[in-house]
């Protein structure tokens, strides 16, 4: 290959790398760090056993519901994704692990029941009725019989925008209630809206035909009870907890009830109205899920991990550099430049892919890059060993460099195909953090081949063509720099 073409390749390559980094600086890109590096909560869910084969559509639907629920938490940039049967929820930054688990794990079983008796804390029979309010329910309350359930542990905030108050377990009222009259499945739609006065919030419900009829019947019966009687109350039970027990309004006519298939539940704040609406609308998840993993990483631990990963990377790179220089002298230094270029491109692409394709760099991803340092160094080694072979075979420095390139190129392509294959298989079949590892490994392999065919080739070729450099014993291209006994002079 002519010298001019080598120079062209080198220039085009450097311009491309310059453009990559120019874009990064101009647009102010920065790498997207994964949860394990910036802190956050990561939860993996798998379908509970005994549900048979779960089909794709149902899983997608489940992901959508979980996403709506997570959105209600107000976490910035949550990521909910599905890989095969597993569902991953990633909440970056300072997210509350317990709250996230609660929101996701909520089975959201909604029931409307008739209140038969309100048992206030401290009153006679309080301790004996139902179970202790401190222990969470293990199973959904029976739908077709009387039950005693506790009121929710959190009461609406006293003033607008304040924190909700937590009520101790032994101070939560209990409700004795009749069987379920309207079930969550009978709710068609729900939304938060301003009430008629325009100051308060309420959640509007639309029932399906069946549900509308059942709701009218129930409210009709309740309206016949005297004002102020607990028997006039309608309990809204969510996951075995009485969320609210509003009495039927005064203007509802006895034996007629609330007709028209819709109703409103008065809320104390916009947030409460919206949350209830989401729960009512999304209802129960179509499948039962188990928590497979739930991990929280603090921001400090994330920062430490990132620092450790970077340290390991630089230490590894430095050690490899020293080894290469010891083995190949000046050409070893050229190999270090190749490695540095490799690092610059890999890092640049990760930054760009983070901004454009949403690729996040995780700890496993950093491990992938570190492992690929070995692959990149190998390409340089293969080229140099090949070069020495060609020199031993009696070629001149220039032709040896060219012959060595074409042979080493073939080996590089074959070897990297295998590595790339491994990375692709890992990427598509693995779950969780492994994908980040496979992605950076595959990306690095591609970049290694690209770098070898352009930068490495041009750099090596141009050094071999420069008479001054080629003749220098420090560069290590001269035959006697590697065939002669170390430290001795050839006779």
């Amino acid at each position, binding site marked *: 290959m002519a010298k001019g073409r080598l120079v062209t390749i080198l220039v085009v390559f450097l311009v491309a790398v310059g453009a990559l980094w120019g874009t990064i600086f101009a647009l102010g890109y920065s790498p997207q760090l994964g949860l394990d590096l910036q802190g956050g909560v990561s939860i993996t869910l798998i379908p509970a056993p005994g549900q048979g084969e779960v089909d794709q559509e149902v899983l997608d639907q489940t992901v959508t519901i979980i996403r709506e629920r997570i959105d209600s938490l107000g976490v910035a940039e949550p990521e909910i994704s599905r890989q095969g049967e597993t569902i991953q929820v990633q909440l970056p930054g300072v997210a509350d692990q317990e709250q996230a688990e609660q929101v996701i794990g909520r089975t959201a079983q909604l029931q409307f029941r008739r209140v038969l008796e309100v048992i206030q804390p401290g009153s006679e029979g309080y301790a004996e009725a139902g179970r202790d309010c401190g222990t969470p329910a293990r199973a959904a309350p029976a739908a077709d019989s009387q039950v005693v359930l506790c009121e929710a542990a959190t009461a609406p905030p006293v003033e607008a925008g304040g924190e909700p108050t937590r009520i101790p377990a032994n101070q939560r009222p209990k409700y004795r209630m009749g069987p379920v009259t309207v079930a969550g499945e009978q709710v068609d739609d729900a939304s938060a809206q301003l009430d008629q006065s325009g100051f308060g919030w309420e959640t509007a419900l639309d029932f399906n035909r069946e549900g509308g009829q059942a709701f009218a019947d129930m409210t009709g019966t309740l309206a016949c009870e005297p004002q102020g009687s607990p028997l006039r109350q309608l309990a809204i039970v969510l996951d075995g907890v009485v969320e609210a027990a509003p009495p039927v309004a005064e203007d509802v006519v006895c034996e007629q009830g609330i007709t028209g298939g819709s109703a409103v539940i008065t809320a104390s704040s916009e947030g409460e109205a919206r949350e209830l609406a989401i729960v009512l609308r999304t209802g129960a998840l179509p499948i039962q899920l188990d928590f497979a993993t739930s991990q929280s990483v603090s921001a400090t631990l994330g920062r430490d991990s990132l620092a450790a990963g970077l340290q*390991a*990377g630089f230490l590894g790179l430095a050690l490899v550099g020293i080894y290469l220089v010891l083995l190949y002298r000046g050409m070893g230094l050229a190999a270090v430049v190749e490695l540095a270029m490799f690092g610059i491109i890999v890092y640049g692409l990760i930054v760009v892919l983070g901004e454009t394709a949403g690729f996040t760099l995780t700890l496993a991803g950093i491990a992938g890059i570190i492992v690929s340092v*070995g692959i990149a160094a190998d390409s340089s080694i293969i080229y140099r060993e090949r070069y020495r072979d060609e020199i031993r075979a*009696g070629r001149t420095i220039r032709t040896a460099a060219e012959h060595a390139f074409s042979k080493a190129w073939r080996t590089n392509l*074959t070897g990297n195909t295998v590595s790339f294959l491994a990375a692709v298989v890992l990427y598509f079949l693995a779950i969780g953090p492994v994908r980040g590892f496979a992605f950076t490994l595959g990306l690095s392999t591609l970049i290694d081949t690209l770098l070898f065919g352009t930068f490495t080739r041009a750099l090596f070729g141009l050094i071999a063509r420069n008479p001054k450099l080629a003749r220098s014993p420090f560069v290590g291209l001269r035959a006697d720099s*590697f065939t002669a006994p170390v430290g001795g002079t050839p006779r």
Partner: protein
Amino acid sequence: MSKTARALPPTQRSALQRFLNGQSDFDVVGRSRLWLIISVGLVLACFVGLLARGLNFGIDFTGGTSFVLEGVNETVDAEEVRDALGAVGVRESIVQFVDSEAGRGLQVSTPDVEEVAGTERDQIIAALTALTGVTREQVDVNAVGPRWGAQISRQALEGLAVFLILVVIYITIRFELRMAIAALVTLLHDIVVTIGIYAIVGFQVSPASVIALLTILGYSLYDTVVVFDRVTENTERLGSASSRTYGEVANEALNQVFVRSLSTSITSLLPVGALLFIGANLLGAETLSDLALALFVGMGIGTYSSLVVAAPLLVWLKEREPRYAELKQRLSTRRRRVV
């Protein structure tokens, strides 16, 4: 200015120089029987180790919860931690302290927590924070359900099967079927030995080690492919009138790639070693150290096997082909006549 190698008489060169020069003449292929004995012995030892000791699965496979606390009160010792855990009903636990610039770190792993998001976990956290003076926000929790490990293992096995099939297809197309078989056997050897070492030493198996196993296979195969590439190149010129057998030419190819194999192993192990060293001093970064450990073990085995398992096996397979068998037969009778 000389542009060709000055061929010094062999006596003036040390074995190391000849080795670095690619002019070593280790008879690897000729000692096939020795390698066979070593490798079979190794594989058997690994099987015995696996059966006798079994694998030490981490909480990701067995289910359990680990807690990482940073900035722990310096006076707390492991016994107090265990007592505090025992008070909330935790019978088994692994307690580990790490001192770093950021202060004292504590990691507690316990298989006792039944539910991933249950109340037991909150009790443990409360017990730990009360003892160590760390706030709730500074406790990192990693909880794993009992079915997660099975899920990961299944996917790893699927990945392995797909990878092996693809590799056989690729090597058959790029080289030939016999090389694919030799490479496959080498890979299986690597898998068994790596798993065996894990069992014998008692390293903990985490999902990261499973991932690393797959990466090792890619690496080992990469090494094997580089050796095969050279063997193919050198044996291309081998005709019926050649004066050397397939085995001899393959052995020469092996010697030529020795330096590369060694250098590549060193340059691969250096960064992984750095990862292992730095990851060991970091709590909660098991991904790093588990990965590095498995890679460190596996890459060593991969280098060994691509040289002394893959190549001799390939020669054995190839010399069963009529034309190379004839060549070997003819050469051995001729050499006997010469002697």
